[in-house]
């Protein structure tokens, strides 16, 4: 940069000298080629300067929105965010997120199964692993290594914008909800369950 700056300073100094002493101007060559070259140099330099604009964000202080009350966290929002990350990410990058989601759903399933079937946590973990804890094959496949998704879900998950993982999460949470409330996603009561199991009942 230094030599370029020196050239620039010399050029400006020469310009001033010419402005002071017109006689010096006669020594310069004002041929068509030279003038055009000077003009083109200006254009190139100008475009270079102007292109500094590209890729440069305009900065300003972010003043935020103090007028709004601080937003409260919504239960489960973090889980939904992890599911979205896991479902959209490519195979390898989404693995950690998928594992997070699976382990949280599995923990809830083991707890529920252990209480529902009145068995130990270890036995419940086995049932979940085998996929025999629920009638829903999709939900079972989501938490099991041995069970596989039904063909229908594999086809649905293969469609653009859909993912088998997301279908599995929804099915597993549905199955858990049925198990804990006795009410399925459509709001229908699952037959053969008592009133006190809907969470509002219960007694000492």
């Amino acid at each position, binding site marked *: 940069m230094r030599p370029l700056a020196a050239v620039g300073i010399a050029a400006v100094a020469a310009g001033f000298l010419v402005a002071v002493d017109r006689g010096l101007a006669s020594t310069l060559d004002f041929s068509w080629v030279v003038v055009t070259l000077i003009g083109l140099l200006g254009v190139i330099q100008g475009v270079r300067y102007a292109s500094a604009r590209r890729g440069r964000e305009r900065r300003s202080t972010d003043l935020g929105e103090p007028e709004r009350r601080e937003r409260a966290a919504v239960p489960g929002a973090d889980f939904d965010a992890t599911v979205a990350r896991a479902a959209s990410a490519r195979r390898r990058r989404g693995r950690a997120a998928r594992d997070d989601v699976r382990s949280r759903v599995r923990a809830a399933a083991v*707890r529920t199964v252990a209480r529902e079937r009145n068995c130990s946590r270890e036995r419940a973990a086995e049932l979940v692993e085998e996929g025999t804890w629920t009638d829903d094959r999709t939900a079972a496949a989501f938490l099991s290594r041995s069970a596989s998704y039904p063909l229908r879900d594999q086809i649905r998950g293969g469609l653009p914008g859909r993912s088998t993982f997301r279908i599995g999460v929804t099915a597993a949470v549905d199955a858990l909800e049925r198990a804990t409330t006795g009410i399925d996603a459509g709001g229908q009561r699952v037959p053969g369950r008592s009133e006190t199991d809907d969470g509002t009942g219960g007694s*000492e």
Partner: protein
Amino acid sequence: MTAAERDRVDPATTAASEPDEVVGGDGDPASTDDGTSPAATDREDGGDAARDSPTERRALRAFDTGRWVGVTGVALTLVGIGIALRQPGTVLVGAAAVGYGLYARLGEADEAELAVEREVSDRTPDPGDAVTVTVRARNVGDAPCLDLRLVDGVPPGLEVVAGPARVATALRSGASVTFSYAVRASRGDHEWGTIRAVVRNAAGSRERLTELETPTRLTCTPELAAGGELPLRGLTTVSHGRVPTDVGGSGVEFYATREYRRGDPLKRVDWNRRARTGELATLELREERAATVVLLVDAREPAYVAARPDADTAVEASVEAAGAVFTALLAGGDRVGIAAMSPRDCWLPPGAGTDHAVRGRETLATNPALAPTPSEDRFYRTLWRRRFRRRLPGDAQVLFFTPLVDDVPVDTARRLDAYGHLVTVLSPDPTASASRSTATPGRRLAAVERRERIRTLRGAGIRVVEWGDRSFAAAVAGANGRWSR
């Protein structure tokens, strides 16, 4: 805006109703006229500038906004094209663009040397009241602020209901600007943050942020709702009260009869039996005793959840319910204390009486541990438990208000139960949603997990009352019917 609100906004009324408050400004009648519109700004000449010393401030470094980046490039390109094509007009246009390039480099964004005052129409409003906040800023520096933006640091727990809490203007030296807005008061001790002033130079190419310290405090203490009669469990003190015991003695409810012993009061002799059989027997009545109760509110960061992002948090619901229980228990003659499960310390020892009621109301309203927004400090579970256990009287029952969104409260409740304190968990439900089908998997999983926690507690013999959409009193009334003593 209603006429009533307009009246509140008028600083003239404010000054009349709050004589102890410092009325800012220079007493120019023009300023009172303009105050009727909440977002109005007015500029006036400084009267006695000597009185105005600049507000304590902290200025950041000025930085380039990048607003005029490339303008010299445009100028040079135009000049170059003009020369190459022998077009004097284009060269002239380029020369004008050079002017813009110089303009962008002209001037620096100075620190905002402002004297700022903030007034609130009511420092101790009731919840739901609209409180008018008026901010007046005067440029006490020598240089004019050519482009000034002021944003007030509204407390995070308050919501602005009328007018933006900001203004954009230019202030020459000695001039002042006033803007006002209204906030809806909600429970808590709210403190305003710094006013942020952004100053730019004339071209807007440089910018600097200045933070101005103007502390203002607003305390909103709700009246405690008279609560539902909450059934306490049978652990009592020796003082007379309202918790029925399994001890016979003096009371109102029949407990048993026994053989007459000399010295028994005549009015407790079972005269019907005497008439029937000729034997003397004494009626024993169920003794009612007072209990010592500690209301424990879960105010850790995870407890600040709500069913919708703009709704009141579970902590808010817990505090409201705790207020209702506090009044009900005190009225029943029990000794009631308040504690918070929070990174900050909050402990009101159990007590009774009118001054205790006032202290309890203040604790629930303004204690920093129960603030409307979560504390940034870390919560150390073990330390907190140790301290809480040390303070908790041995015969105290614990009413534990928690949304049960994680496992810590379950663990805590079971430990307290194991230490011999009777625990009742009262849980606002933040996972309740309007429609089952629209709830996301996350929301439904959170509900499933919470339900499992409640079952775990109930399985351990701990009473749980939960309330979501219905009111706390209704939930308690429903639970009352279910519980056997």
